[in-house]
């Protein structure tokens, strides 16, 4: 198949990224694999979508490190690719890292992906639904019982009233933007700092205040979902546990902290089952759930990372499961002459 990976910036990719592992796996399986950065798309005068693509020169790579070295090296193949002719375009950029002068890059993949999907390219995750997920309100559209109690406002009194209601402890973070930046633990006995935290966040927009789950002190479980179901390959779940390091509230990978093997419980699987209908409706092919206790803390729909960590603990190649799933979609699309609703194909 002809597969494109859309990333923030090809030169800034790291070998440990899930995207790199997926791309290497596809290359080794004989697929044609292209990388596109945020600035590489072209809407041509003939109404066709093109892109300046980058590809690794060889057809087999032993390691993802070697693959990325070649992709970023001087031997890499650089070519103007017709995006409309790709079989699959996988949107794997992380919008939260494109801030400041690069805010325009946050939506580039979605914007051009929305056109490509109308031309019969399978675009995952579905770009129209990713657009809705650009802010944390997306999470509030999942059933109430799987989420911590939440308030969203720019009004200081609203937020303080909520803190009191929650017994004094809550997590506050920006509604728009993510990545662990600007996430605060607000405590009632820390009155002097609460106003400052709120003011800092209000300058950037709306604030989410969220019930603090005591179990979060120990860390969380990341569980991958594919085609709306827990990603299971050769009897193993694609999951791992992230342990909190010291006082740092941000339990996501970028904030450091160690990892260990996850034990997937019935309560995890029940959560996965509850979010499934919405993921299917929205064409969310590959998603990472962050679970604390019996609640969902976050759903990463843009560029869920850590498939390599899951692989390390579970000893099966989950990348192969993902690429095989894409190949199956391409075969379906062939039978239907590239004429099938993208949101549905994304989950088949």
């Amino acid at each position, binding site marked *: 198949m002809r597969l494109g990976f859309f990333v923030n910036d090809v030169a800034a990719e790291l070998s440990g990224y899930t995207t790199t592992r997926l791309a290497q796996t596809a290359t080794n399986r004989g697929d044609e694999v292209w990388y596109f950065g945020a600035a590489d798309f072209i*809407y*041509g005068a003939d109404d066709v979508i093109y892109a300046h693509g980058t590809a690794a020169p060889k057809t087999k790579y032993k390691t993802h490190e070697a693959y990325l070295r070649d992709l970023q090296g001087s031997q890499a193949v650089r070519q103007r690719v017709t995006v409309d002719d790709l079989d699959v375009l996988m949107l794997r950029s992380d919008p939260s890292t494109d801030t400041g002068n690069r805010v325009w890059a946050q939506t580039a993949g979605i914007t051009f992906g929305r056109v490509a999907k109308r031309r019969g390219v399978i675009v995952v995750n579905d770009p129209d639904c990713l*657009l809705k997920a650009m802010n944390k309100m997306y999470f509030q559209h999942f059933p109430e019982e799987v989420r911590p109690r939440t308030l969203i406002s*720019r009004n200081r009194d609203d937020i303080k009233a909520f803190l009191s209601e929650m017994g004094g402890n809550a997590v506050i973070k920006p509604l728009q933007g993510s990545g662990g930046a600007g996430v605060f633990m607000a405590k009632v006995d820390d009155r002097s700092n609460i106003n400052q935290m709120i003011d800092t966040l209000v300058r950037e927009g*709306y604030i989410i205040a969220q019930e603090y789950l005591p179990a979060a002190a120990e860390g969380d479980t990341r569980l991958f979902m594919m085609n709306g179901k827990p990603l299971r390959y050769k009897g193993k779940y694609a999951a791992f546990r992230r342990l909190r390091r010291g006082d740092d509230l941000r339990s996501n990978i970028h904030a450091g902290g160690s990892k260990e093997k996850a034990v997937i419980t019935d309560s995890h699987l029940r959560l996965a089952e509850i979010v499934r209908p919405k993921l299917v409706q929205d064409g969310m092919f590959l998603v990472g759930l962050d679970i604390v206790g019996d609640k969902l803390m976050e759903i990463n729909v843009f560029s869920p990372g850590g498939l390599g960590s899951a692989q390390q603990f579970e000893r099966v190649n989950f990348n192969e499961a993902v690429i095989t799933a894409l190949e199956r979609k391409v075969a379906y699309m062939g039978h239907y002459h590239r004429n099938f609703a993208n949101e549905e194909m994304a989950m088949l």
Partner: protein
Amino acid sequence: MRIGFFINDIETEKSGFTTLRLAMTAVNRGHEVWIIAAGDLAYDADEKIRAWARSTAGKKYKATSTYLKELKSSQARSERITVDDLDILMLRNDPALDTGNRPWAKTAGIIFGNVALRSGVVVLNDPTALAGALDKMYIQLLPKHIRPKTFISCDRKEIKDFIQELGGVAVLKGFQGSSSQEVFLVTNENRANINQMIDAIVNFGYAIAQEYLPGAEQGSVRLFLVNGEPLRYKGKVAAFQWMRTGDGMRANIHAPGSTAAVKLTEAHYQIAETVRPRLVQDGMFLVGLEIVDDKLVDIDIFSPDGLVTAQSFEKVNFCEAVIKALERKVDYMAYYRRQFDNVDMATL
């Protein structure tokens, strides 16, 4: 009915704005009207959308200046209302005005509006489609024959090649930015500056280069569509001609220029007919088309302005027609107990 108008900020509203005239018309027809600014929404812990909103005490207003003055004064009612209990929420903010300091404000109405849909509030224009129209790709998804020739890219050389193909004359503007900032007309005379013009745009994202239409010299025609069709009331169509006075390239009504009555042609109606299916599909209730020669150069779906201008030339109250169309939707929603797809209701 209970209707909310979502705007950028009460301080920047002007008495000539279409939004204020619509609000005043609704008040005069006996409706409960609330004005909600971009920062005043909240998602409460009980999962309801609320807002700090303003309303006036009077029953009838002759001029929008009086109405606006009262809205801004201390006599205005300021209350925390439940947005979920409104019949209609009109999203009337202009995202272009919030590009600089308040990027979060651009999408606030869309984000909260999407949640209000759960309670059966009719949200117009449909927030999902609006989210996909924040950049200029929306117009590229309309049929080719009604658009000027267009090229979108970050690549300086490719942009120059396209302009060369057009004979050296083209309009150059930001793809994601507002309609009013950094619009250049590249000609064979100012070709020496082409690199600077491209840089001024590409440094902030994608550039859109477009065929220059000779008719743009004179200005453009603005035509309003309601429920996907030209807004016709008492035998008159809501439209007017905008004529450029200065040298500025900005062919929008906030730029220097004068207005006049317009005699619509078959070509204008043909364009309206061509965009109709997409507008209906997207739930676009109130839209402004910007037409030059027989091409659509812009489509304003966020906060189309100038209805009052059309009113002054055609001598009928188009605002009344818009409010009546909303009243009809509220009746429909009552028959169906607030259970009806928002996209479909938007153009019924």
